[in-house]
C-alpha cells in the first residue's frame, strides 16, 4: 500500500538526477527490489505510471530487477540463498539469519535523452 509513496520518491529522485545531467527527458529507469523489501512490483509499476505524467519522467519505462535474498547464519556463519517464507540457514537450517542482500530498494540507473 506504500508503493505510491515509493513511486513519488522514485520520480523525485529521477527528476533530480535528470536535472543535474541537463536531460530533456528520461526514457527508462532501472530499479532493484530485494525479495525481502515489502514492495509489490506490480503495485509500484501501477503507481509509477499513474503519477509520472507531467514530470521529467513522463514517458519513462520502469525496469524492475528482483534481488535474491542472501543470508548469513548466526550459528554456522554460512552464507547463501534463503527462502523468504522460512528465513533459515540454507546450510544447517539454523535461525536466526541476517539478510546480507535482498532488502534493496534502489534506483540503479536511468537512461536520459539529451
Amino acid at each position, binding site marked *: 500500500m506504500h508503493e505510491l509513496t515509493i513511486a513519488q520518491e522514485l520520480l523525485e529522485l529521477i527528476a533530480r538526477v535528470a536535472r543535474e545531467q541537463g536531460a530533456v527527458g528520461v526514457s527508462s529507469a532501472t530499479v532493484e527490489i530485494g525479495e525481502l523489501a*515489502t514492495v509489490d512490483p506490480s503495485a509500484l509499476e501501477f503507481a509509477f505510471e499513474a503519477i509520472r505524467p507531467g514530470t521529467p519522467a513522463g514517458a519513462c519505462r520502469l525496469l524492475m530487477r528482483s534481488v535474491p535474498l542472501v543470508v548469513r547464519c548466526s550459528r554456522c556463519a554460512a552464507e547463501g540463498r534463503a527462502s523468504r517464507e522460512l*528465513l533459515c540457514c540454507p546450510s544447517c537450517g539454523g535461525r536466526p539469519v541476517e539478510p546480507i542482500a535482498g532488502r534493496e*530498494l534502489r534506483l540503479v*540507473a536511468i537512461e*536520459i535523452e539529451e
Partner: protein
Amino acid sequence: MHEIAVGAGILGQNDAWAQHNREHFRAHGVYVLNLMSAPGAGKTTLLERTVDALASRYRLAVIEGDVQTRIDAERIARHGIQAVQINTGAACHLDARQIHETLPVFDLDALDLLLVENVGNLVCPAEFDLGEHDKVMLLSVAEGDDKPIKYPVMFHAARALLVTKVDLLPYVDFDLGRAERDARALNLELEVFRVSARTGEGLDAWYQWLAARIEGQRTRR
C-alpha cells in the same frame, strides 16, 4: 541517449530525515520508541498505562500516527502529558519527515522519553526508519499466533515484542509458545513481554525494561 548510473536508495530522502531526527534525539538525550502493530492490538491502551506508570519518574510525550481523527492524541492528553497527532491521510505508515515536522512542537530538552505510535499495519511501517532508538511490536492474542511467520520483516526489526491481551487467552486458540518461538527465531535478541493492559499482568517487567532503556540513553547524553 545514454545511461547514467545512479545507485541511490529510493527512500534515501526518508533515511536522511531519519538521520536528522536521530541527531536531534541524541543531542537532547531523549529516548525514542516506535510502536508498531496491526490495528487494534492495543498500542494506545498500552501507552495510557505506560504514561500513568512512568510520568512521576520520567518526562514523557507521545506522537500519535493515524490515517484520520484525533481520537488517540486526545486519549493520551487526558493523562496529562503532551500528545501530538499526525494524520497520514491515505498513507499506511509514518515517515521520518512527518516526525521531523512535529519535533518543533516539543521541548526536547525537557523530555526523557518520546513514544511514537505508528499507523496500525504489519507491513509498511517496517520500510520507514523514523530515527527512533528501538522498534517495539505488539501482537494481541486475538490476532493469532501465526503472525510472526506471516510478517517476518516487522518482527525481525523489533527490539521487543509485547504479546498483549493475555487475559483473553482462555477464550482464543493462541499458542504462546509457538508465537514466541517463531518471533525469537527471526530475532535472537528479541525481548518478549506477556501483558494485559486490562488486568495489569506483566506490565511491571515492561516498565522496568523501558526505564533501563531511558537511563541508558541519559548516560550517553
